[in-house]
Structure formats: C-alpha cells, structure tokens
C-alpha cells in the first residue's frame, strides 16, 4: 500500500474514525516509514493547536437578541431586514449622494444609471458587509493593501 493511503488512515486515526482492524498494519508501517511518521507527528501537532485554540464564543448579548427577535416575530412585528440593516443607513446615505454626483457627471439620471435594478439592489452590491460608517470606508482606503 502506498504512503498516501497510510496517511489517509492516519487522518482517520486522529479523528477516532479508523476501524481497529487497520491499526496493526498502520503501526507496522509507521515503524519503518519516516515520511509517514513525520506526517503523523505534524498532523497531531496541528490537531492539538486546533483543539488548544480557545473556541470562539459569541457575545453573551447575542442569544438575547435572537430571542427578542423571535418574540417580535411571534407578535408579527419583526422587520424584514436584520437589525444590522439599520446600522448601515449612514453608508446608504453616502452612497446615494455619491451616486447622484456620478450620475450628474455622466450626464445620466439616476433612473437611467440603475435602469435594470432597483436602487436597493444596486446599493447592496456596492456596500461590503461589515462596513457601517463612512469612516470605515475612508479608513480602509487610506490604509492601502492590508497584509493577508
């Protein structure tokens, strides 16, 4: 059997998904193959890092906010947009202003510029999620390229 097959088994062994009857052959191979032993060692180290990393926890207010929204839904008063929509209003306003400016320079009306799309769709496409305020946009532009 090729080393790649043994390495697949090692991956399953780490996940406690390898059936017992495969183990003897695998451990025999590990004793004689340095490449697979090294793979096992490194893969286990990565698994330990993943497990040791603190499991990200949400803000404690999040569950309450979900419960509140469901409660509103029960009463039939939930807005169609998620609460985040309202935080984005300042940016919508900015983009609308920019759009008017661009529209004028290009000699087009807004209706022409957005002919086949509703204004909301167009604005949605222009605004990345997570950007909530004007400073977020200009802050980003000023910083230039971020390291990956």
């Amino acid at each position, binding site marked *: 059997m090729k080393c790649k097959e043994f*390495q*697949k088994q090692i*991956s*399953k062994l780490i*996940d406690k*998904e390898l059936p017992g009857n495969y183990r003897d052959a695998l451990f025999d191979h590990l004793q004689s193959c340095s490449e697979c032993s090294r*793979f096992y060692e*490194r*893969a286990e*180290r*990565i*698994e330990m*890092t*993943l*497990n*040791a*990393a*603190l*499991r*990200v*926890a*949400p*803000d404690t207010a*999040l*569950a309450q*906010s*979900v*419960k509140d*929204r*469901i*409660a509103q*839904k*029960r009463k039939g008063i*939930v807005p169609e947009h*998620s*609460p*985040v929509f309202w935080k984005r209003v300042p940016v919508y306003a900015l983009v609308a202003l920019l759009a008017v400016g661009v529209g004028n320079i290009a000699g087009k009306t807004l209706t022409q510029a957005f002919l086949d799309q509703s204004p909301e769709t167009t604005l*949605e*496409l*222009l*605004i*990345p*999620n*997570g950007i909530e305020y004007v400073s977020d946009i200009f802050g*980003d532009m000023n910083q230039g*390229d*971020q390291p*990956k």
Partner: protein
Amino acid sequence: MPRFEQLTDEQILEEAQKGSEAHFDVLVERFTPHVYRLARGITNSHSEAEDVVQETFLRIFKNLDRYSSEKANFKTWALTIARNQSINTLASIKRKALQFFGDRDEDDPEPEFSFNPMSAESQDAETILSLKQRFGMLNQALKQIPERQKTALLLKSQENMSYDEIAKIMGVSVSSVESLIFRGRKKLLELMEK
C-alpha cells in the same frame, strides 16, 4: 432555568414545536455558540457570524413544524441551516468586495482564535509563546483553505462531530468527508509547517 437542564435537545424541541416560547429560548441559548462558531469559521467575520445566527434561528423558528428527529438530531439540523446561511453570506461578501474594491480580500482584524492560557497551564513560557505563534499561523492558514475542507475540519475539531454527522450537515458521503478532512489537513500542514 434548572428544570430545563435535565431535558434533552429533542425533548425541548418537542415542547417548542407545541408552541412553548420558553423551550424555544432554551434551544437558542444552547445552540447560539455552536452556530456562531461555525459561521465565524466559514465567514471569517464576527459581524457576519452574528447575522448568520439571527437568520439561522429565524429559519429554525419558521420551519419548526417540519423538523423530525427521525431524520437528524437538532444540532445536525441547526448546523446544516447555519452552514447554508454562511455560504450565502460568504458568496455575498465576495461579490460585494469584488464590486467595491476590485480583487481585494476582506479584512477582518479580529483573530478567529485567541489564545487560551488555561489550555496550556502546565506549559513553560517558551511553549506558550510558540503556541501563540501557532494560533496566529493557524488563523492565516484557515483563511486560505477551501470552504468545504475548512467546514469539515471545523465540525470535527470544534464540534467533535463524527464523519457521519458531518456528512449529513454537508450533504455529502462519509468518504467525501474523509477526503475533505484529509486534504484540509494536508493543506494546513503545507501552510503551517513549511
């Protein structure tokens, strides 16, 4: 709410399906961390993950009467919805980023994982430092692996789910899960252990 603590997810769900608001709230409390973690891992964004949590529970609420515990347990069902919502969000983030910034990547300064000193109580300072560095590398590496590989790895490592459960959530075969996790691990090895 001590009386809820003894109930299984399915028992709580049964009451929620009968219309009990209090029981549905318990489901929200129990599963918000799981849904958030998966969404955070897939979208790489705290605020997007919070949106995914909201949308996921709204969907669960709307489709409560369609759920049957014979098909899947509640966690599997909830994480299936959460993953689909996260993928939609991810696609939308990429589309919007492309429209707005050209080919630029999303920036999210918040680390995906942070260092947990409790997990390294018995380690010496040097080991702790190297663990910290490894978490940083892990964050970067996870951003570079394909969504399907990352989701399978996260469900395994964070949620401790079996290949069978992961297969149900991702709508693929168990052997595909094996392969996704294996390829994800190899990719992480390449990125982290150069």
